[in-house]
């Protein structure tokens, strides 16, 4: 059974699958007009006012599946026609208001916006929205929880504060603030915010690989893959990737081992550092705390590090990164990454790709995927980089008088913001900020098929399945064979 958390994910998946299928069959141009009807057969509308609007929205999703709008500088876009114009963020009084005598709400209101109206048997609080500044003090004050603050799910999800309502009541993204974390993509209940997809580029690379003299395509997969595909094993996913036409599959977690190794050394040298593996976190620092940019680790991310090592050994190959992350799609476009990684897709898109090629992974044999250490693999969850760097310091026998690690692991941008605010003022006690934009780390990424409390335990379990137990054991090979450096 295929498993998504929400119907929105499934809808997006269907569009990606159809687009990938047409691309595989070289029928994109003639086949695209038929996709909306395939996905919304009618005659009864199930999601919107009518099937024609549903189909029009599918058309917009197709544009995103084909890479979206190049002129838009981020990796996520609002589909205005799909935005349901949720009510404005405002404070409302519900029928739970009993018209009590205390009037804590009115007393708490700094603007005098609350009055009381007669409802027959009792009075009820009433908010004058022309005065209300939505501070939420009345919400906190009411002992009956009768006053609520409604915030649009997209705005609530957007921790950098990049989403606001435009004059047509549609969600609008300010790209000066957006860090492409993709939280809004997963949180919008109408699927009106979507990440750009490069799935057709992958199809093209796989096609070219099959031609004589074509470049082999390597898949680099993020460690959060473990447990993502509910009905198949990770070994079967590896087989599935090879059935798609990938020459081989390599763990990004080995890149993470290398990153931990270099990052620990860099930390000892500099004394204070923030991690650089999460591109949304890096972007958040650059956009909000430019003074701290100098403290961002100079390391490549595990994805880019792994790709660099592979391209040194196989300069002719193409590399597709498959992970839970939307921001990685933007990272791939950076100058120092674009020659290393060729395309980035998510687990969601991988599921679409596998189904477009009619591959039933549950019938395939288990293949192996084992290069990294426990520590490289647990990068996928909050606290993972901290644990790995701590381990490397131990393995390198760094003594406390040389350097003492004081780490803070920030799960989600709100926690990142707190640590960065302190660091910016010079009052942060810790000397190593692990920043992950998604809550729980990469396992909470918007491109994951499922998000749940069990994911952390899954990643830890996956870590324990690693052949190599120490970071040193996983990376020592490159001391002999070369190919890895910062």
């Amino acid at each position, binding site marked *: 059974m295929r498993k998504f958390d929400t119907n929105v994910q499934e809808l997006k998946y269907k569009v990606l699958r159809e687009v990938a299928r047409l691309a595989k069959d070289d029928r994109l141009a003639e086949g695209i007009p038929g996709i909306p009807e395939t996905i919304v057969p009618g005659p009864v509308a199930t999601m919107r006012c009518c099937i024609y609007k549903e189909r029009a929205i599918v058309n917009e999703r197709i544009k995103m599946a084909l890479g979206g709008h190049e002129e838009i500088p981020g990796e996520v876009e609002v589909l205005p026609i799909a935005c349901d114009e949720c009510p404005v963020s405002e404070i409302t009084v519900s029928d739970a208001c009993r018209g009590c005598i205390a009037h804590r709400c009115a007393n708490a209101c700094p603007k005098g916006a609350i009055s009381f109206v007669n409802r027959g048997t009792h009075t009820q609080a009433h908010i004058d929205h022309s005065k209300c500044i939505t501070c939420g003090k009345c919400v906190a004050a009411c002992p009956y929880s009768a006053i609520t603050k409604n915030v649009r799910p997209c705005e609530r999800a957007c921790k950098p504060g990049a989403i606001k309502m435009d004059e047509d009541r549609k969600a609008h993204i300010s790209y000066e603030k957006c860090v492409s974390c993709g939280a809004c993509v997963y949180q919008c209940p109408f699927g009106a915010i979507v990440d750009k997809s490069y799935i057709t580029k992958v199809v093209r690379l796989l096609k070219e690989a099959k031609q004589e003299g074509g470049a082999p395509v390597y898949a680099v997969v993020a460690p959060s893959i473990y447990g993502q595909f509910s009905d198949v094993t990770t070994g079967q996913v590896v087989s599935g990737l090879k059935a798609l036409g990938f020459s081989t599959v390599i763990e990004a977690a080995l890149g993470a081992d290398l990153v931990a190794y270099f990052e620990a050394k860099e930390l000892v040298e500099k004394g204070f550092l923030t991690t650089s593996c999460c591109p949304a976190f890096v972007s958040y620092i650059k956009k909000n705390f430019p003074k701290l940019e100098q403290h961002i680790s100079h390391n490549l991310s595990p994805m880019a590090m792994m790709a660099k090592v592979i391209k040194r050994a196989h300069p002719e190959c193409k590399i597709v990164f498959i992970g839970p992350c939307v921001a990685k799609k933007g990272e791939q476009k950076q100058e120092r990454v674009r020659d290393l990684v060729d395309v980035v897709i998510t687990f969601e898109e991988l599921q679409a790709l596998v189904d477009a090629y009619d591959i039933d992974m549950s019938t395939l044999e288990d293949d192996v*995927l084992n290069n990294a250490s426990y520590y490289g693999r647990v990068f996928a969850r909050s606290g993972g980089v901290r644990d790995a760097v701590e381990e490397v310091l131990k393995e390198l026998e760094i003594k406390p008088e040389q350097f003492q690690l004081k780490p803070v692991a920030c799960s989600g941008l709100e926690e990142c913001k707190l640590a960065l605010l302190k660091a910016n003022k010079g009052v942060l006690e810790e000397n190593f900020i692990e920043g992950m934009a998604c809550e729980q780390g990469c396992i909470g990424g918007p491109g994951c098929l499922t998000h749940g409390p069990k994911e952390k335990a899954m990643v830890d379990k996956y870590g324990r399945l690693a052949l190599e137990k120490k970071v040193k054991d996983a990376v020592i090979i490159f001391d002999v064979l070369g190919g890895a450096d910062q």
Partner: protein
Amino acid sequence: MVKVSICVGSACHMKGAYATTQMFQEALEKAGIADKVDLSASFCMGECKDGPCVRVDGVKFHHVDQSRVESLVTEEILPRTQA
């Protein structure tokens, strides 16, 4: 320089490619030809069932576990360094 590339992809790694690599380093030094050999990594030679795989100047060798490293060095690599 003789080019020796050792596959460290998952399948070969599981079959002991790291031990093979370390063995290679030792055997090359013992034979006194470490400076004449360029050791590097490969991430897949496409023959996962027969790993660990090693390529010497383009020629592939299969099942190169620790026990086969020394003979490979003396029989295949040493003569090439003298050629």
